């Protein structure tokens, strides 16, 4: 491309979050580096399979992810969800990080994306909850119903709550909770990692508890 020299590309790519250092990250001796360069070096080592470096860079990333999510307007109660989603995304796309570039900019892009997803999800949920209030108002009093129909109703509500879970969480509940598969079997069947299934089940149960007990 005439006119598009290498420095031109660098300028085009420079986008550092306000909390990031100005220096582009270059992997070097991790001991004498700024926090951002240290993270870049850790991630480069993680790409080569260094588990210690990987766990360090992930632990170091949590605060940065929270900062990005907060800036995007994610509520306090949802920050942890965004952190977990972002950590899982980092794991899946860790090969796209280029150690010659800013780790923080790479991370901020992923965290920003997951934060927007989280905001959209909570927007949808808020709309559903308005609908639920109407349903509760229109619904006959629970004491009128016989014990039998109450149980049916509870089962139906649980089923509906499971159906409303995000696909990954629903899958985890169905495979692990309802079909009682082992983690390995469920992983083989769904093509997801056991770690992702565990995380999804954990979050699904939390959401279901909130939905069933919170609504009562």
């Amino acid at each position, binding site marked *: 491309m005439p006119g598009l020299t290498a420095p031109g590309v660098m300028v085009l790519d*420079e986008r550092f979050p306000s909390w990031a250092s100005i220096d582009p990250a270059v992997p070097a001796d991790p001991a004498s580096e700024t926090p951002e360069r240290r993270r870049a070096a850790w991630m480069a080592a993680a790409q080569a399979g260094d588990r210690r470096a990987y766990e360090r860079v992930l632990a170091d990333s949590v605060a940065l992810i929270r900062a990005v999510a907060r800036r995007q307007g994610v509520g306090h109660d949802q920050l942890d969800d965004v952190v977990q989603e972002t*950590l*899982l995304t980092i794991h899946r796309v860790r090969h796209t*990080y280029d150690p010659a570039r800013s780790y923080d900019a790479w991370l*901020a892009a992923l965290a920003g994306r997951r934060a927007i997803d989280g905001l959209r999800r909570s927007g949808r949920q808020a709309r559903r909850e308005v609908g639920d209030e109407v349903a509760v108002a229109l619904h006959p009093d629970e004491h009128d119903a016989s014990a039998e129909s109450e149980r049916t109703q509870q089962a139906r509500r649980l089923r509906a709550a499971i159906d409303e879970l995000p696909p990954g969480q629903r899958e985890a509940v169905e495979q692990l909770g309802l079909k009682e598969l082992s983690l390995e079997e469920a992983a083989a069947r769904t093509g997801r990692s056991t770690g992702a299934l565990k995380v999804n089940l954990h979050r699904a149960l939390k959401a279901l508890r909130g939905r069933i007990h919170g609504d009562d």
Partner: protein
Amino acid sequence: METTRAMADPHAHDRLIATLGAELAPVRRLRPPWLRTLGWLAVVAIIAVALFARYGVAPMLARWAGAPDLGWAGLGAALTAIAAAWAAFALAVPGRRTAWAWLPLAPALLWIGASGLGCLRGWIAPATHVASAPEAGDCLFFIIGFSVPLSVLLIALLRRACPLRPVLTAVMVGLASAAASASLLEICHAFDAAATDLAMHALAVGAVVAANAALGGRLLSREAGRAT
């Protein structure tokens, strides 16, 4: 409900990090966007060589010598293909700026401008004639026919990356493959610039870009949106 969700397990992140650490395997790093662009362009170049072998270089050069605007339009299309493909590969890497999407603008203006100027010319370029309606229709099929495999290849390559802006990336995919197809068409295009033919080219490029934005965007967003 809110309180239930707000009560985060303080060790949840540590547990997840340990799980991910246990699953860590070495990965092959994504090559830089310019290198991946060259890979895709190599496929386009192979097709170009095949077309040159079939039609020869001389007719194209004779057309360009007689009517330089055709040459400029061809050059503009080729540069648009390069720039749009590069932009697509850059946009697919997290942390790269959205400003990459402007890269194909200048070559696209050259392409469109030179094609438009050709219609205003008073003479007919050598060894060409103004395309009849069915002939202009052939141009449509040529551009769409070559764009489909080129787009599929680009999307397949991009799915290995992580396009966080899937629709914008897919628009670049469409522009790159349509522009590359239009450049390839230049090799065997024995028609002079005229409003009918130009309209067909514009229609073909528009259709390819729109189809990519709709279908390609969905394919790429499924990839980028999958968190687990």
